[in-house]
């Protein structure tokens, strides 16, 4: 989308020049592993202008260049660099985006010929499965979604590296007779190892959150989100497991009675085992229980068992042991307040 906006801004100034540009398609594999400065140097030799540099995405940097404005096509070259240190960077991906109108002197046939010479013939010989992907540009194209072909190529240091190649061709119709149809050709080559690694780093936080949730929601080997919230006894047992998990020794329970019984007023649950260490007696109002969210159910049960098992009174153990539970709770609140309550008695 961002790229499309940039393009639309440039449409009025794309001149319909007659100058022919040679070597439109870079031999981008040559540029892999080069430093940012080397790529900038290469671009300036090709009469490309540096548009932006050093958009820092953690370990990766994106550098954008544009072709001379008097060309009969519009072209963005984008190089992606893995920054190892202040001195060292590796270019691991080159994207080339060529846009031209029907009325330009540059024909798609010419570009495709150029492309074929540089890439496609080779791919046909390397991979029989290679397919040209066509895309129609509508609201901007996510080039990452264009399927990629793996191939092997000798890098500048002489060793063979696995690369990804992406290729797409698209047409956008402008309902304006003066502008006509905009054609887009997209090509990219990237070092698979770097691309995969950086992609997986992007997902790191998400994966850690998943692991983190796995750990905090699992008590006694059971995911509390999936527990049977109408089996009060099993819920109480999960609380006891949680005590163990948190290094709290609970007394041997000889009586465990957790039942649904109507309770007066707004009371959802009540504990009757405060200061009786061998017994857990909990009564839960079935109507109000049914209407409560799963988070609230657990919150209330932990509150009551805070009285019953941990012998806490209102005013002890933080928010979870507050007198009223008259609102809804999030899972984060449940875990935070539970942690406070448990830590208060350690």
């Amino acid at each position, binding site marked *: 989308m961002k790229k499309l906006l940039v393009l639309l801004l440039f449409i009025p100034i794309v001149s319909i020049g007659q100058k022919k540009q040679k070597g439109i398609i870079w031999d981008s594999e040559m540029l892999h592993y080069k430093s940012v400065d080397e790529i900038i140097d290469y671009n300036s030799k090709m009469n490309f202008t540096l548009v932006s540099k050093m958009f820092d995405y953690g370990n990766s940097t994106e550098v954008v260049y544009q072709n001379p404005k008097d060309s009969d096509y519009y072209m963005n070259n984008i190089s992606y660099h893995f920054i190892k240190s202040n001195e060292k960077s590796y270019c691991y991906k080159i994207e080339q985006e060529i846009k031209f109108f029907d009325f330009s002197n540059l024909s798609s046939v010419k570009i495709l010929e150029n492309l074929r010479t540089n890439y496609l013939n080779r791919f046909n010989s390397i991979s029989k499965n290679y397919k040209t992907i066509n895309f129609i540009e509508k609201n901007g194209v996510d080039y990452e979604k264009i399927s990629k072909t793996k191939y092997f190529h000798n890098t500048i240091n002489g060793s063979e590296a696995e690369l990804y190649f992406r290729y797409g061709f698209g047409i956008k119709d402008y309902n304006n007779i003066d502008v006509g149809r905009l054609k887009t050709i997209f090509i990219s080559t990237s070092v698979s190892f770097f691309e995969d690694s950086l992609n997986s780093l992007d997902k790191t936080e998400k994966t850690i959150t998943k692991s983190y949730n796995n*750990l905090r929601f699992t008590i*006694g080997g059971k995911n509390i989100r999936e527990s049977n919230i109408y089996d009060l006894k099993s819920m109480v047992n999960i609380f006891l*497991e949680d005590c*163990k998990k*948190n290094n709290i020794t609970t007394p041997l329970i000889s009586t465990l009675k957790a039942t649904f019984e109507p309770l007066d007023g707004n009371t959802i649950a009540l504990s009757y085992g405060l200061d009786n260490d061998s017994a857990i007696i909990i009564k839960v109002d079935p109507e109000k229980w049914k209407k409560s969210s799963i988070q609230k159910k657990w919150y209330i049960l932990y509150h009551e068992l805070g009285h019953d098992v941990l012998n806490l009174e209102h005013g002890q153990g933080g928010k979870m042991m507050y007198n009223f539970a008259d609102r809804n709770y999030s899972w984060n609140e449940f875990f935070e307040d539970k942690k406070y309550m448990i830590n208060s008695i350690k």
Partner: protein
Amino acid sequence: MKKYLSICMLLFTSILISQFVEHKPANNDWDIYPETEINYSNGKEDLKEILTLQSLLAEDRVDEMFKMMGKFGYIPIPNSENAYWKYTIDNNINENEMEPIIYIKNLGSNNNYYENYLQVFFSLIVKDNLSSGVSRTLKVNYKQAARMNNLFYNLFSFGNNYRTLKSTWDGSMGLDEGVSMEWEDRYTVKLTNPKKTSIYKASNFTPLSPFLRKREGYTTIVFNGPGKAYETNIELKKLSKNPNNTSEYFVPNVTFLSSVSDMSKTFKPESREPFNIDFFMSLENFNDRIWSDN
């Protein structure tokens, strides 16, 4: 009668002594298959980090555990659940070194161990012909597997549980004629008889007591460490073949499980201070502090 008493005494002493691990100065006698050129340069630091993570898991300090994982350089393995490795984007690691791959697992409800535990595969860094870089492998040949198991085992400075050592050799025990006992320092006892001098040292790492049942197919090392867990069992799976390719063996596969209590269930986690990350990480050697001496 006196003769029987002497025999019984001798038998008792020999059973008792056989429980203890005799201290041997470090040497290279156990350096097997050096031709594989496998090393584990970061072994002690890795082990310290893993023990820290397991201790935090045993205290359900999940937030801190993930924070420390990040600090130690572990990131999730793509497309795997609860699996972590030390990964740098430029793969700046040396060939033929060992490196841990950690899986966070859950044992479920049980009476003996804290439910969350770590399973660690000590992978081998090998040359990767495809990417022309290096990668980690979990399958190696016999010599490599044997050396890797040995390198892992040698990370531990084995000794004796301090409390057992102290209560056994407390000075009041009757010794055979000609046998003398002397405490060289707080953690070292020396037994001398006319034929031999034996040194017994206290250590946080002990082999599993012969009185306890071993897990089939595993070698168990007991870590009497800090924190609220009673102890941590480090279970190293014995050398095992890849069932799909019998010429391949698996790299060391180690389970770290923290015990809730002792056998008699008299131990209470409340009696211990929580695991102190900074203090544990600042120790240069594992036995700089004997944790059962408190």
